């Protein structure tokens, strides 16, 4: 599904040049659950942003479902993104001024889905995430776990092929964290590819494969059977 080769990303300020990603090559197959790990500043989030088409690489090749997209413009990337990718963030990133229902509905609006269809889909996913009773609440009226469930609901509302999760349990206690990880696992088992950035070895154990980064380079890839805790 995803194939990147020799991907590079450089951040420049006036005096310093930092290589966030240095010739990174990774392949992720459809239906996989991959965790990306590494210390702070190793380039995990940069990689995730590029995979999520939020950021552009400075070099290398990026194939998404067989299409080379490293040279796509913003409009094309936005189009590809909204049809194929769902995001879950550490800080939830719900819009405070919108209710639970409206937050979840947002991607469908940008996809141009009709109001009736939106209502049906949102209600279905809220039921599934067990937060239907909170549909008219605003994010600040919910607990962290509930907010993240709303965020997951929003991420899956348009049945994306890929879910990118950036430290999805970072702001949650262990009970709520586990619930979210269960949700992601369920989604993966239903066929959705999941790529997750995490610091937590515990969360990484839900993944099939762990990619470890250090200073912008892949230092190790291991499958679940080889996990060492």
């Amino acid at each position, binding site marked *: 599904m995803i194939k990147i080769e020799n991907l590079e990303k450089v951040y420049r300020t006036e005096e310093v040049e930092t290589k966030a990603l240095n010739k990174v090559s990774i392949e992720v197959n459809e239906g996989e659950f991959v965790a990306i790990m590494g210390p702070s500043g190793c380039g995990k*989030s940069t990689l995730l*942003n590029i995979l*999520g088409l*939020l*950021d552009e690489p400075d070099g290398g090749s990026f194939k998404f479902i067989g299409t080379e997209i490293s040279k796509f413009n*913003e*409009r094309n990337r*936005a*189009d590809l*993104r*909204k*049809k194929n990718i769902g*995001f879950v*963030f550490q800080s939830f*990133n*719900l*819009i*405070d*001024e*919108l209710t639970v229902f*409206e937050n979840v*509905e*947002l*991607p469908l*609006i*940008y*996809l141009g889905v009709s109001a009736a269809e939106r209502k049906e889909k949102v209600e279905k996913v809220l039921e599934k995430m067990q937060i239907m009773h909170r549909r008219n609440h605003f994010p600040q009226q919910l607990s962290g776990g509930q907010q993240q469930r709303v965020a997951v609901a*929003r991420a899956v509302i348009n049945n994306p092929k890929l879910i990118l999760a950036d430290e999805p349990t970072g702001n949650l206690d262990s009970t709520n964290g586990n619930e979210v990880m269960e949700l992601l696992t369920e989604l993966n088992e239903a066929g959705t590819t999941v790529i997750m950035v995490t610091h937590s070895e515990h969360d990484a154990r839900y993944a099939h494969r762990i990619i470890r980064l250090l200073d912008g380079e892949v230092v190790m890839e291991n499958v679940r059977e080889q996990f060492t805790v």
Partner: protein
Amino acid sequence: MFRNYFKIALRNFVKHKTYSVINLAGLGIAITCCLLLGLFLQQEWRFDRFHSKADRLYRPWVREIHQNEPIVNTITPYPLGPAMVAALPEVEAMTRIVTLDVNTQRNGDIFNERVHLVEPDFFRMFDFPLLNQPPGNPLTQLKDAVLTEEIAQKYFGNQNPIGQTFRMQLDSAMETYTVRAVAKNVPANSSIRFGILLSFENIKPLRSQKQMNHWQQVEAETYVLLKSGVEVKQVAAKLPAMVKTATNNKFKPGEYVVNLQPITAIHLDNTLPQGIEPVSNPAYSYILATIALFILVIACINFMTLAIGRSAGRAREVGVRKVMGAIRQQLVYQFWGEALLMTLAAVVVGVLLTVLLLPAFNELADRQLIFKLDSTTLLSLFVLVAVVGLVAGSYPALVLSRFQPVEVLKGKLTLKGDQNWFRRTLVVVQFGLSVFLMVGTLVMNRQLNYLQAMPLGFKTDRTVVIPVNKGGEEGLAIVERYRNALSSHKEIANITASAFAFGTGAWADVGFNDKNKVFRSFQMNMIDPEFIPVYNIKLVAGRNFDQNNTADKYTAFIINEAFVKAFGLPDPLNQKLPGDFPAHQIIGVVEDFHYASLHSKVEPLLLVQRPDSLFAGINDLMFQSSPDPDISVRLQPGAVAEQVALLEQTWKKVLPDEPFSYTFLDENIASQYQQEKRLGTIVTIASGLSIFISCLGLFGLATLAVARRTKEIGVRKVLGASVGDIISLLSKDFIALVVVANILAWPLAWYGLHQWLQDFAYRVDVGWWLFGLAGAATLLIALLTVSFHSVRAALVNPVKSLRTE
């Protein structure tokens, strides 16, 4: 999608109440100012455009060179109109308009009215509709009259006025006139303003044939209607030949030039002398338009600076929306939509405030403006919403929408250097405009106070002016009868009469050829011997007129110091006027006094009792107001109302057939500065509002700055910063901006005010201390506004500040 945008806009509005209220109040007030001033300007700028043939209507005016001196007049000689009709086939219609101040009588009530004598074409040239009557000339007989609704109501109440009669004295006797039609009241934006129309033929018995044919005596305004499709240039080119033929070559080329002024240009052209009606100073319209624009810009800047201040908060939303698939264009629409929505709300507030404040504004501006939500107004409001919304919303729409999700979703967004500069520039512009208006207010008010406090050279207190609406010997007889009737009342200190009073119009303009045959001019008034003592005018040489000296009555002149200087009379009492005048004597010299408004310098003045011998030596005489006597009565200290009642009772007793009216001298004099006073008040209010709106913005920015720097404040306090340090930390940025605004605004304000003051012959200096005062005031206001937040922030426990991170 739009429902979603609308929802977000509405919820943002409710959630961020401070900003919403600041924006709504600022824009609402600014829009109110714009609407009120716009109504005023619309009337000023659209004067006389209600005539359907306005584009073809012209008023001829004359520029005559007399002995090398130009004399310009919009009041024209009688033969001009007919000569134009005879010589120019392009002229479709013509009317002369002459006004007379007359006494009228209806059911025993006596009124003093100004009547307009017009020719038959009047009714097809202008759009002054007659009620319930086909268009056409209703004034077919000499004694026919057309009244406006207002006069008809005054004379006949609710009766049908058509066919009714009233009496009027144009000449020596009261005669009966019949109402043939009622005209709709003249609209406020008309340069022709009448209450009673009579046939032009009525002037003929009153003027000699010579006067009616004289090209150098002026009395009527002339209007012509050009045929459709005729270029005015075409007609203007033919005018010199027309003058030549009509005057039998009386003038050399260029000596007597007739020009055409479009009717729509009359009201705002103060370069020509005024005709029958006063005109406006166009500078005042521009000043008011500028003020309206300034206030609107200030309110728009609030919107933008607050949007920038809030951009960190909105950035995350931008990021999330982009991640969810929004493209930039959609976000541009969203933010512009929000700005338009806010502007729309502000327009609603503005319209409501306008309706509420219009009566007060009408009083302030001395207008009868009406606010109607007709198609033109709605269109203007639509344009206003569009322009203000697009301008005010341009920052969030164009800049916020450009934020990259990767940047804004991680950590907090900080303002980039250029955005910070942009915001600072806006604040500087905003305060610069406020300082400009504040300095304007200070200087304008200082100038007005200066004018009002300036010694005029004569006494103005407790003086009542009563016009006698009869001229010649009849007028003088009325003065004497009234003087005698009042002489026994001890409440009355003195009485005097003069052809022209103070503050009610210009005194006579007299032109003569001096010994070198050079055309010279001076001002003139006819007075009685009481005039100088009653008004306490100082004689610097010679003596006053002597009541008992018959020679004084006809041949003695008193001149002012300006006269002595202008005509070079080193020993005036032993010299004669420098022209070809019959035997006369200059018996006294008075100190210069300001008989005209302080817009002009004191001109040479000659005072005389009976002008007969003076007139024998002059070449030109111009009355800009009626020379019928005005009686001035100085009252003793006491209850003014009772004294005025006594004046009226006495008048009615001795002069039952004459209307009684009066004014107070000090009010007449103050009225000369009405235009400036109104402008001064409007500018004062506007500058107050502009500062208020600017401070609203500053308040909002300070709120945001404190919120943004909460952590910094906490850290600084932990490290030992005092409350004073924190206040100065938070205030100094804003104060610096206000200082820069002052420095930039001062030279501009100085230049603008310097130009305005050129209108006055006597003016204050634009003192530098005024700029200092405005600067200090804006600084203080800004400091107080910012300190509301900075003091609170400085007093917060640092632990709390740090915990918010």
